[in-house]
């Protein structure tokens, strides 16, 4: 048996996720250094649609050793998906994107806290700078934005996306959509956002993270699982957690946010949730080992046909050993 690449366990059909021959051949199969003959046998077109479909529906939980590997895996997955999609002038790849606290970057060691999509963004930027990935024909829709925070405030999600992603890549500014928390009519802004997603043809891949209380975007516990983009009041937990990024002054912390609904994300053709860090472990347990429950909104994705949960070892601390072993492929 050929040795697996150290530290990566994926329970997938072996040929499923290799980069198709002739398309971006510069790196090996995502997460796996092996090149089996099975893939080659499928011809110069490489990965065919059927095998791709098969592989996706079998994959639910991907467990990597640590935050860096998890970010890399997720970035490679996104990269592969965009390239395999072959975006072009009339065919844009629609990507949903997450955000997080900007100050995390400056004040804390990321790998200790995990739970931010920053590592994933950094890897995507690296692939772009290497010339492997272009965002020219990619449209992005961000999940959320604070209400009442100036657009150029360092903690606003506009700033986060600009500093950590958009300024390093070649995306067309007209294709980067973020909710405007300073719009005069907030509900109209939300409705317009939903309309833009619809006009773009729906989201191909929605990438997101979860909060310690199991929320996706700002769909706090108790949010409807069929909700759409709307104005949400933030839970007290979230406000208290945010205070340290606003100089510890509670009065400066935004109390409301615009967010995509759980239903909006469920409409995406594919969803990838990044969960890293021990403080997300309980939320992950509730999300996949317990039932679908609006108090843990990310559990709604148990009913989505194509969802991937990408996590590190620390995030699996509250899962049953049986679950972890199953998804790691050790029987």
């Amino acid at each position, binding site marked *: 048996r050929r040795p697996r690449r150290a530290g990566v366990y994926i329970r997938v059909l072996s040929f499923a996720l290799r980069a198709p021959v002739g398309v971006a051949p510069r790196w090996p199969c995502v997460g796996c250094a092996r090149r089996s003959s099975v893939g080659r046998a499928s011809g110069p077109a490489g990965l065919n649609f059927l095998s791709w479909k098969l592989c996706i529906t079998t994959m639910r939980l991907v467990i990597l050793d640590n935050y860096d590997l998890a970010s890399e895996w997720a970035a490679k997955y996104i990269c592969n998906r965009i390239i395999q999609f072959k975006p072009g002038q009339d065919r844009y790849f629609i990507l949903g994107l997450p955000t997080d606290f900007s100050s995390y970057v400056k004040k804390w060691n990321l790998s200790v806290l995990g739970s931010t999509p920053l590592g994933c963004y950094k890897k995507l930027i690296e692939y772009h700078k290497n010339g492997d990935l272009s965002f020219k024909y990619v449209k992005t829709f961000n999940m959320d934005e604070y209400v009442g925070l100036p657009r*150029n405030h360092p903690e606003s999600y506009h700033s986060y996306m600009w500093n950590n992603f958009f300024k390093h890549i070649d995306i067309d500014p007209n294709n980067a959509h973020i909710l405007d928390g300073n719009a005069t009519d907030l509900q109209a802004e939300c409705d317009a956002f939903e309309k833009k997603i619809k006009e773009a043809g729906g989201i191909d891949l929605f990438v997101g993270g979860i909060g310690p209380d199991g929320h996706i975007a700002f769909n706090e516990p108790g949010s409807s699982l069929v909700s759409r983009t709307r104005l949400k009041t933030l839970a007290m937990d979230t406000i208290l957690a945010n205070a340290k990024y606003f100089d510890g002054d509670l009065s400066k912390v935004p109390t409301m946010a615009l967010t995509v609904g759980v239903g909006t994300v469920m409409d995406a053709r594919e969803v990838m949730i990044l969960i890293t860090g021990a403080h997300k472990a309980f939320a992950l347990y509730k999300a996949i080992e317990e039932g679908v429950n609006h108090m843990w909104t990310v559990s709604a994705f148990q009913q989505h046909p194509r969802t991937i949960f990408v996590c590190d070892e620390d995030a699996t601390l509250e899962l049953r050993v049986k679950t972890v072993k199953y998804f790691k492929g050790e029987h």
Partner: protein
Amino acid sequence: MDIWAHHSPIQAPDQTRRRIRRLQLGLTMRGGQGAARALVLQFTNCRILRGGALLREDLWVRGGRILDPEKLFFEERRVADEQRDCGGCILAPGFIDVQINGGFGVDFSQATEDVGSGVALVARRILSHGVTSFCPTLVTSPPEVYHKAPEAASLPEAAGDFVIAPSLDVHSSNWFVVLPQIPVKSGGPHGAGVLGVHLEGPFISREKRGAHPEAHLRSFEASAFQDLLATYGSLDNVRIVTLAPELDRSHEVIQALTALGICVSLGHSVADLGAAEEAVRSGATFITHLFNAMLPFHHRDPGIVGLLTSDQLPPGRHIFYGMIADGMHTNPAALRIAYRAHPQGLVLVTDAVPALGLGNGRHTLGQQEVEVDGLTAYVAGTKTLSGSITPMDVCVRHFLQATGCSVEAALEAASLHPAQLLGLEKHKGTLDFGADADFVVLDDSLHVRATYISGELVWQAEETRQ
């Protein structure tokens, strides 16, 4: 300007106040209506000096101003029209030289027919030193250098202490006046911008005149500020005045000049600390070449040097001080003492003489001869230093090496601090959004590779041209 709020018992005439406002606006009126359609330039692969740190960021420029790329992305939904790779260099705000007496054979204080072209020559040549704005300095000179004396028949009644100036100079230079020929001017490919004239003298101390000619020194006699006006004529193009605060009635003059928006500097003086503090309370904000031409530091009366750490200054204000960091005018140890005592106020100046950029030999400075020998310039026949011939970028490198300060601090001493002194820190001496795009491209050893004014390349080093 802030200093207006503090003292203005002698009200400036409305006209002059409007002139000051026009002067400030004239330096900052760029962009305008066509700005939104102008090309967006993106300087990549560089480190920019912003907020006191060297950041790995791109510099965006449009319409001669620094642009906020995030705003451009989210509001205008535009990308850069042109990208320029800076090869990993440092992009710093253009240097500002507030004390330069001439250079390349040009003497600003020499009254000639065409002072303008002399200033233009210096302005063009100092681009290679990384200087994008400067204050041409006039040393103590006879009054006819500053303004044209009226004809005898049309003498106004309130002549006061007017010196009618029978011709002291057989070359009939009394027909050519210098001061009105040096207007405020924006920089560009033609040369660095002129921020206004620095008048060093003649209201200075006899004992500390240095290289200034004794014959033309003056003091405030009967009518203080009127006396000053009588000497200088119009103050339209004036930006800084250096005077000695121990002269009688100097505080009135300082207040009047401050009210006009002119920066008052203390120098060539034997003032003690008390007189100096009084002058600062009246509005003085600068010290001309610290340690030179003033009483030395004494532990019981630090003199003007004591202003660096004085606690008698108006709250919220601190003093700026010029230093000639050429290794000769000030011992490096003294430079370090001053820097450590008050790093926020240090302004690097060249105090360059016309011999800057020329070889060894005899040259003219004001009304006297100077002798250049290698890196030093003396008053001919004496051992008195007569200004320096060290270019600004050499001063910056020497300052960095002598004090061991950070690169950011050294660059700010030559750009941000002079801009703060002149109240221009929103537009000059900084790479913040909205500031004028005057910057200099430096390699890691702080040698100038290229100079930009208003986002336009105005000078480039030889090796980078290939």
